[in-house]
């Protein structure tokens, strides 16, 4: 059984090495972050001068910007996908929309932030704010939503559509009553992943949403998120307890992402079971 498996065992050894490095990263975050992660930390504003302080505004900003960007782009992406998959009949790999989608998807987030900064801040005179940051996230997320929706629609068997059309339903009714319910589980999965990805975004937000929070929350006020706060604390911040604060913020962010992925996965599973 184990003859001629030397390479396999060697691979397992190397893989274990990599896994240990990664495990070290996770345990580091937990070990340093957990002592800092108190109820007070989650519910108060940061206080750089005295040290300590919490991350409540950052949590709110993250949820508002990421949620807003997703709420706007999810239907937009779905409609573009419906146009290709349902109205054109099939998705042209290498068609104009597909090429634009693939290229747009590959644009680095910092470049998106840079462009949104020029358009929104320099031309339209928007301040560095939650609104500008949300716009950057939306621009980043639209092609993601198109990709997610197309792969969800592609998984719906063609027989479903044919049956519905044969019964006399219009295309609109077929999409609304047959295709979308059948694709919903995959869509929920994709939305969860997009949410997780957006929550971890920071490069574009440093440019467009700013790196501080104001005492008076508003969508036109500066909108530092959890991810940006980690960066700020460790590079620009002067607080005395930067290490612990950064670790605890990282832990919070990673738990937020884990819960998002878990919840969307469960919801999708539940939909899948309900559908069959």
């Amino acid at each position, binding site marked *: 059984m184990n*003859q*001629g*498996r030397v*390479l*396999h065992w*060697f*691979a*397992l050894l*190397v*893989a*274990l090495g*990599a896994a240990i*490095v*990664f495990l070290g990263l996770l345990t*580091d*975050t937990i070990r340093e972050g957990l002592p800092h992660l108190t109820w007070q930390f989650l519910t108060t504003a940061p206080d750089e001068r005295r040290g300590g302080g919490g991350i409540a505004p950052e949590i709110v900003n993250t949820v508002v910007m990421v949620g807003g960007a997703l709420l706007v782009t999810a239907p937009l992406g779905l409609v*573009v996908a419906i*146009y290709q998959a349902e*109205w054109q009949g099939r998705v042209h*790999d*290498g068609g104009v*929309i597909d090429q*634009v*989608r693939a*290229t747009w998807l*590959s644009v*680095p*987030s*910092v*470049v*998106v*932030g*840079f*462009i949104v*900064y020029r358009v929104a801040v320099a*031309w339209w005179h928007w301040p560095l704010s939650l609104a500008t940051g949300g716009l950057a996230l939306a621009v980043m997320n639209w*092609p993601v939503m198109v990709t997610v929706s197309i792969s969800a629609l*592609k998984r719906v068997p063609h027989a479903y559509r044919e049956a519905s059309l044969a019964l006399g339903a219009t*295309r*609109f*009714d077929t999409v609304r009553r047959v295709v979308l319910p059948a694709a919903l589980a995959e869509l929920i999965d994709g939305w969860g*992943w997009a949410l*997780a990805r957006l929550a*971890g*975004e*920071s*490069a574009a937000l440093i*440019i467009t949403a700013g790196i501080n929070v104001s005492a008076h929350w508003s969508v036109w006020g500066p909108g530092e998120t959890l991810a*940006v706060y*980690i*960066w700020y604390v*460790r*590079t620009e911040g002067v607080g005395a307890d930067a*290490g612990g604060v*950064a670790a605890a913020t*990282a832990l919070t*962010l*990673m738990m937020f*992402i884990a819960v998002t*992925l878990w919840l969307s996965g469960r919801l999708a599973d539940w939909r899948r079971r309900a559908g069959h």
Partner: protein
Amino acid sequence: MRERWREMMMTRLTWALSGAFVIMGLGLMASVLVGSWPILMAPHSLGRLLSPLWDPLQGQWGILPFIVGSSVVTLLALCLAVPFALASAISVSRMLPPVVRPHATRVLAALTAIPSVVFGWWGLQMVVPVVRNLGGGSGFSLLAAAIVLAVMLWPTLSFLFAEALQSVSPSYVDASLALGATPDQTLVRILIPCAMPQLINAFLVAVARGLGETMAVQMVIGGQVAMPQGLLSPGATLTTQLLTDAALYPPGTRGHAALDVMALALVAAMAILVRISARWRVGT
């Protein structure tokens, strides 16, 4: 009648939004092209752009140090990450018992969602001191950036490699084993060659992710605009320089146009990667 109307409105809506999608996507690309126009069209533009001297006060906008930084960091990170990722993919898809396999794949997928800034934070306190002790200097260096990037790319690459290996039809593997080939021979002669198109695609995804990565690199590379003298010297990449200078030069200034050139270089590199990857795309 109402149904006809609804159908027509839906047709128009999907068509209009798809048009808006294309226009906006092209607009993004056009924006960096137009923005970099003043520098690209200036006399001797290419020679001056590709000079190693970035000195805003002297009006020197050579972006060569950043191109070198981006290339070196990405290449080195991939050299570090690919062997580990391939080993992990082989372990997950060939060594683990079939019951555990889907869970291991799911864990790898979940690890890809860890935000890059977390890797930057970890690099600051774990990798930079190690590089400092081993190689002297401040520790903020291309090498530190490559190591952090490699760790960051490992889950993505492992996941995609494992998917590639699992896409090979089991009958090929069974046939090879039935003919008396050892598992190792089957792996090297059948599994990896058959999965090669997907493996290459996974590699290209990792190249794109590495090239576009900003945060994890920015926190440990040192942000030095001079030409890096070696792996242990600090540097900057196209993305990190964009991040640190974006708010520094308002639109209309020369510096802003120089940043646009960097953005254009990144977008062009990405577009090329997408084209290459489309060639390797397997029929779905």
